Structure formats: structure tokens, C-alpha cells
């Protein structure tokens, strides 16, 4: 028990992040709990708008102000609650112990500073390096992330780089201070397929080299299958299922997860089309129902489902699901892949 406890590098407990918009309170992330183990890759999947990015941004407290606010929860890292850190401590943490890579490498780098300048900045801020030391280290980083002609490229501006190369620069910046956690929010969505694979390989390789943990957010279940150890499936701001990759793929216990899996097989068959897992739309995050958030789209809803929202329950060891009929799905009592 104590061993597994110690193994946790990050623990998110009952995190809720809301946006106070003119239309009402958007519950982008509502009562989300999960943990991240040392050395593991945790995948977060779910449809667009389900709160994946907001979850990630909440960890580093990068929620856009003043609309967004983390209203509840704890984020425990190295024995401290990140939500209680002061500005200075927060700055020391960001880009140092925990760093982040974003979806769109075309817009994530500042267009008016050279790539080298931006990489050096990470080193100077946290390690207080002198300029020439930072330059040496920065060059090493660019080499490490596989930028060809990195010496010359160091003084280039972002617009002189391709998308894949920019994402490599983002990675170089993110790993500059050997963080314990790297959060990657759809790091390859904006890239070509071949480049995608290269970037993911690079991240995986660096994870082993630096002995860090990764949280990877993605739409792509193939990426999850290949790189993640555990997966959290999110729906409408809540985690609906959380378990190992094998469980998620072979013993899914939530009808939404099952729907996602089916859409993958369908995609394989047709080799085209957009990811449209399940009939219907997710509920508005502004007024979520009191009962199960997935009920409206669920074919298997029963009387019990009209009651309270089903809490995340451990139906077998390390397999959490928020569905009253989760066990039935898991054990195949309800046919998983029927129509």
C-alpha cells in the first residue's frame, strides 16, 4: 500500500474548474480525480470540449482569467497542494518540475524572438545560467530533440521552421530543466502523420532518458494504445472510466468508452470519416443533468440511471467507472459490440 502511495507523483483530487461566462457557468471540469505514477504515461481521451485541456491547464494553473476559475479540489505534487502555491512558487514550478507542450506548434512559439532565445529563456529563468552557458545548453537541447543543423537553426525565427520542427523546439523547451512531469495537450494533432509518429517516439524516448512521467491528451486511440499505461476517459467534464490500457481496450465498462472503441473499428473498416463515436451530442456544460450525464445518449439506460449521478466506482482492482451497469459491461453480460 505505502509503496503504491509513494509511487504517485501527482494526485488530482476532486478538481473542478468553471468558466463564468455571460451565458452561465460552464462546468468545464467537474469533480475530476486521478493520479499519475512515476515513469508512467497517462492518456486522457474524450470528445472535443469534454474538458481535457482545461484539466491539463488547471494543473499548472494556466486557466484563462478572469472568466475561468478553479473552484475546488487539490492537486498534490511533492507533498504540496499546487492550488495553494503563491505566485513565486508557481513560477518556480512551471517549466521546471512540470512543463507543458501545446497542440498548435505554429502559434505556440513567439514569432518575434529566435528559437534559440526562447529555448535559452527556460534555462535562464530556472537555472539562472549565464547567457553563454544557456546558449551551450540550448544547443545541446536542440540537438537532443533532433533538429538538423541545430547550430545554424538556433538563430532562426519560428516562421522559418516547419510544424514538426517547431514542436521539437517546444519539446526542447519543455524538457530543458528535466521536469518530473510533461503534460502534452494533443502534441501531434496539428502535424502530418509521419511527423506525428516521430514526435511521439521522441517524447517516449525522452521520458525514459529523463525518467519522467507524461500526461498525454489525445483524440487518437491508436496513440493511447501504443504509448499510454493507463487511460482516463472523459465525458462532459467528468471522468467516466479510468483504468489500464488493456482494461480500457479489452474490458471497457462504460457505454461511452465502448462507443469510442467501436468508432475506431469502424474507422479501420472504412478508412475514412471523422471520429463520431456515438449518436447524439454531449450535454451543454452549462446545465448538466443531476442524473447520469451520458444517459441521454445511452441505449442501455435503466431505471436506476434516472437516479443520482453514478460516482466513480472501482469495479475491479484499478478499474474505475461511473456507470451503474459498469460491471455488466465489463463482464460482457451486455453485449459490448452489438449495434
Amino acid at each position, binding site marked *: 500500500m505505502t509503496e503504491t502511495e509513494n509511487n504517485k507523483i501527482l494526485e488530482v483530487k476532486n478538481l473542478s474548474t468553471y468558466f463564468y461566462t455571460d451565458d452561465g457557468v460552464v462546468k468545464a471540469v467537474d469533480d475530476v480525480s486521478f493520479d499519475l505514477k512515476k515513469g508512467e504515461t497517462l492518456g486522457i481521451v474524450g470528445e472535443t470540449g469534454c474538458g481535457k485541456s482545461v484539466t491539463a*491547464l488547471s494543473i*499548472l494553473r*494556466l486557466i*484563462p482569467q478572469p472568466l475561468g476559475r478553479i473552484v475546488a479540489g487539490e492537486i498534490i505534487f511533492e507533498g504540496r497542494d499546487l492550488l495553494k502555491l503563491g*505566485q513565486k512558487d508557481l*513560477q*518556480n*514550478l*512551471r*517549466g*521546471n518540475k512540470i*512543463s*507543458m507542450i*501545446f497542440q*498548435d506548434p505554429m*502559434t*505556440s*512559439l*513567439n*514569432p*518575434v*524572438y*529566435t528559437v534559440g532565445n526562447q529555448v535559452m*529563456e*527556460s534555462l535562464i*529563468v*530556472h537555472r539562472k545560467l549565464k547567457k553563454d552557458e544557456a546558449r551551450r545548453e540550448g544547443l545541446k537541447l536542440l540537438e537532443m530533440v533532433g533538429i538538423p543543423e541545430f547550430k545554424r537553426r538556433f538563430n532562426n*525565427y519560428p*516562421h*522559418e521552421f516547419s510544424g514538426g520542427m517547431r514542436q521539437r523546439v*517546444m519539446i526542447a*523547451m519543455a524538457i530543458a530543466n528535466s521536469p518530473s512531469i510533461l503534460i502534452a495537450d494533443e502534441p501531434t494533432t496539428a502535424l502530418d502523420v509521419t511527423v506525428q509518429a516521430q514526435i511521439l517516439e521522441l517524447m517516449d524516448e525522452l521520458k525514459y532518458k529523463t525518467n519522467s512521467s507524461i500526461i498525454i491528451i489525445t483524440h487518437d486511440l491508436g496513440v493511447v494504445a501504443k504509448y499510454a499505461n493507463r487511460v482516463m476517459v472523459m465525458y462532459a467534464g467528468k471522468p467516466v472510466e479510468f483504468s489500464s490500457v488493456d482494461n480500457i481496450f479489452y474490458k471497457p465498462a462504460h457505454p461511452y468508452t465502448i462507443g469510442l472503441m467501436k468508432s475506431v473499428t469502424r474507422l479501420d473498416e472504412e478508412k475514412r470519416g471523422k471520429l463520431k463515436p456515438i449518436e447524439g451530442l454531449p450535454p451543454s456544460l452549462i446545465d448538466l443533468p443531476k442524473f447520469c450525464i451520458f444517459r441521454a445518449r445511452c441505449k442501455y439506460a435503466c431505471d436506476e440511471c434516472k437516479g443520482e449521478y453514478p460516482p466513480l466506482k472501482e469495479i475491479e482492482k484499478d478499474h474505475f467507472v461511473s456507470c451503474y451497469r459498469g460491471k455488466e459491461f465489463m463482464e460482457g453480460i451486455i453485449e459490448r459490440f452489438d449495434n
Partner: protein
Amino acid sequence: MFYFILRRILQIIPVIIGVTLILFTLMYIIPEDPAKLILEKGATPEALQNLRVKMGIDKPVYVQYWRYIKQLAKGDLGTSYRYRRSVNSILADHYPNSIKLALAAIIIEVIIGIFAGIVSAVKKFSFWDILVTISTTIAVCVPVYWLGMMLQVAFGLKLGWLPMSGMGDGSLRYYILPAITLASVSTAFVARMTRSTMLEVLSNDYITTAYAKGLSNNMVIGKHALKNALIPVVTLIGVDLGSLMGGAILTETVFNWPGVGRTIYLAILQRDAPVVIGGTIILVIIFVAMNLIVDIVYALLDPRIRYEKKEIQI
């Protein structure tokens, strides 16, 4: 870059031809005889005619124009009807004063305008933001000469803190009121533009990246946001530099500032065509030069522009 600058300088030539043509026509239409302006009231018709021949204004207008252009090509702006002095030397006397006033106005515009814009963007909807919004609205709406006169009355006449007009010994005190007047509208524009570009820039992904790296608020705003936000502001300031020179006509007149603006104003009253035309040509040249400087600064700020220009040259 060199070709770019050269091309821009050559572009001035057609602009000057156009400007002189318009002014020449206008001044020609005015039914006033320059010879009468120069000679005493009781001058004989023969004396007047002699003078006209000597000045060349007995010739048809196109001949006069051609002569003027030939002169201009040599850098000679002609002779003032009123003062019988070369326009070059009259303008040379007054230009430094105008430029000094314009510089003072630009300093106000840049420092106050950009600072107010940043504060109101970063502290959106705060007291400061509202204050900036209200005062910029007032500054834009109020006529320049009215503002000038109000300042004169308030700080010169009533409070007696600052001189009301003229340049005096050229000390800083004399600059304050006219520079504020001259800068008022532009400062308001700069503040508003800085605010809006700053807000736009702050919503960019690279700002989130900068925060995610662990940079302080000051670093993110002062380094990452500001340089991007200033790119459009620099353009505005540049375009504005030229109009500052033009706006100086009103301000200089109100404050009795011995600059080119006032000289042109007086020359118009006195129908002193060579001074009006010469002064305007200098305004145009300065306008184009300022724009050129701005484009160069712009390219220095924004590497993407620099890159495109490089490509065009090849």
C-alpha cells in the same frame, strides 16, 4: 534593404510633382498680384510691370511652373514675395523649431500613449482602464485649437505655472503646453491601439507558453506581449509623425510657436506663394521620410517582414 530604401526615396519625386502642381494652380487662381504685394501702394504701373518681368510672373503659368521645377531640382525653393529672402533660408530658420516641437509631442505620444494602453489592457475593466477610455475619447473629440486655448487659460493665465505662448529662451517649460496640445489626438489613438493589440496579443498561444515556462507576469507582458503588440502601434505612430507636422499648423498658430506651421499659415494670409509651396514640399519630404523610418523599425521588430523583403530582393 538598400534597394527598398532607394525605391522609397524615388517615390517621393512623383508625389512632389503632384503637390507642386496642385499648389501652383491654387496660388495662381488667387487673383492677387505678387508685384503689388512687394511694392509700395503708390508704385507706378511701369515699376510694377518691370518687377513682374524680373520675377517672371508675366509668363503663362506652365512656363512659370517649369521654371519652378527646374529650380527645385537644384534644391532652390525660390524667393519669398514678402520678405525678398530665399525660401530656403526662411524655412531653415523655422524648421528646427517645428521638429523640436514634433519630437516633444512624439515623446509624449510614445511614452504616455503606450503606457496608458498597456495598463488599460492588462488591467482590463479596472478604474485605470475606464479612466483611459474616457480621457482618450475626450482627447479625440475636442478640437485641437480649443484644447490649446483651454490649456493656455488654465495653466498660463489662471495658474501662471507655464508660459502661454512663444518659445522664449527655448527652455523645456515653453514646450509643455504646445507639445501636449499637438500630441493629444495621437496619444489617444496610440493608447487605444496599444490597448486593443495588447489584448489581442495576450490571448495568443505563445503567451500561454510563456507562462507555462515559468516566466513572471512582468516578463510575459514586457518581453513576449509588448514586442508583438507594438508592431501595429509603430505603424500608427509613423503615419502620425507626418500628420504631426501638419497638425503643427494649428498648434503653432495658437501658441505663436515660431515654426514652419505658423510660417505657412502666415504665408497663406499674405499670399506668399513660394513660402507656402516650399514649406509644403518640405512637409511632404518629412512625411515620406518618417514613413520610411517607420518601415525600417517595423522590419526590425517583426522578423517575418524582414524575411519577406529578403525574398523579394532575390
